[in-house]
């Protein structure tokens, strides 16, 4: 059974690769933020899997609870960022500047 948990953990880690790819490529900032959010959910699961491996789930479940409760605060802040950004420097103009670097 322990081998299965190791396998599950490694599989979840391997499934992070496409998301890190999206973070690297992601054409817009919101794409990246979405990917970050997804990694947060995966971290929550992975922490419990690590807890199963160490057989101390009661301890690791606290971290997972912290992530479950607080992970969306960052995303909310990022979403609010777009409500309040200076119109002159808005998102579409930023994207137009990007290829000139």
């Amino acid at each position: 059974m322990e081998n299965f948990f190791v396998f599950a953990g490694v599989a979840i880690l391997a499934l992070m690769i496409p998301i890190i790819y999206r973070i690297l490529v992601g054409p817009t900032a919101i794409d990246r933020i979405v990917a970050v959010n997804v990694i947060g959910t995966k971290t929550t699961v992975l922490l419990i899997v690590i807890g199963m491996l160490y057989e101390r789930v009661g301890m690791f479940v606290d971290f997972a609870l912290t992530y479950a409760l607080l992970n969306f605060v960052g995303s909310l802040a990022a979403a609010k960022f777009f409500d309040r950004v200076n119109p002159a420097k808005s998102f579409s103009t930023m994207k137009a500047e990007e290829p000139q670097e």
Partner: protein
Amino acid sequence: MIINTICIFLVSCGLIFFIGGAVGIIRFPDFYTRMHAAGKGDTCSMILILTGLSLYILHEPTTANFLVVGKILFIALFIMSTSPTSTHALIKAGFEEGIKMWKREDEKEGQE
């Protein structure tokens, strides 16, 4: 033994849904559709995996284990309410920034 099998089955189902989300986040063409793959395929697979793990924990039913399973249920509940919220906030931000939606090629030509 049966519990082990059920646990392995549920966790594997969760992993398969994770694969769906991960492939979708690469292949889908625009921001909105990627949001579909990213935001919520994860919630479902997370619930499946957590259910499997908590079944495995209940293997030996003691009070402490029941409380741990209660905490895991709370995690699932919290993610079920926070994840849609952040998805909604992000897609609203993108929508109001005016990110263009992807359309099929033929429809686009038809409109023009």
